[in-house]
């Protein structure tokens, strides 16, 4: 076989299917959830040390738009991560593994992620 074979690794030039977006979004959301969890754990530790600390953290979350935005962002990625995980588990049991059904479940996972994000907006701001 020839050693130099034609390759196309310019991913930005390839029209990726929904399955590819669902997959990479799951990985990216997992990384963000992991980093955000570490920050949340440190903040929780600080907040639970005393009532003064707790009130300080509460006040920051209530007063600043950026704090609410960050919480919303975290809930959004957590929501999509959960939707993507459920999709993975369904597919691991052998369902929705064909081309058409795989695309369908990927779109459903993305739609559920968007829905959960909208619910998070409602919960935080309304």
């Amino acid at each position: 076989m020839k050693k130099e074979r034609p390759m196309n690794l310019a991913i930005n030039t390839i029209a990726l299917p929904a399955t590819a977006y669902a997959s990479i979004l799951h990985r990216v959301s997992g990384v963000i959830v992991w980093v955000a969890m570490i920050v949340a754990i440190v903040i929780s530790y600080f907040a639970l040390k005393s009532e003064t600390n707790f009130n300080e953290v509460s006040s920051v979350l209530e007063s600043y738009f950026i704090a609410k935005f960050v919480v919303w962002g975290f809930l959004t990625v957590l929501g999509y991560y959960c939707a993507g995980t459920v999709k993975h588990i369904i597919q691991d049991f052998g369902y929705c593994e064909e081309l058409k059904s795989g695309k369908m479940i990927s779109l459903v996972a993305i739609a559920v992620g968007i829905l959960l994000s909208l619910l998070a907006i409602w919960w935080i701001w309304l």
Partner: protein
Amino acid sequence: MVDLVMMNILKSGSNQWIFQRLSNACIVAYSACLICLLCTVDLSSFSAVSNLFHSTWFKVITSLCVIFFAFNSVLAGWQIAGDYVKQKTLNKLFNMICMTASAVSVVIILATLWG
């Protein structure tokens, strides 16, 4: 016993796959539990949150889950490093950072719950 289980997981790709699926399902279940709590219980005061963190069921479930999450993070970090961080030293450094951060978060959570 735990060592044997962990070595089994470390040496076997299929065991790692099963562990990852179980721990991901655990993350989903725990997240759903937390969201339900946030929606049903008033956790806007220090005493309410403190009471929750002192309740035995919450302490036990959170402790077990966070240990699961830490191992899941290390495994996921190893997969991500394998895919994107090809240089050997950087790869090892990335994995060390993942393991350290996961261990630190377990310690902080356990200290918060049981300290």
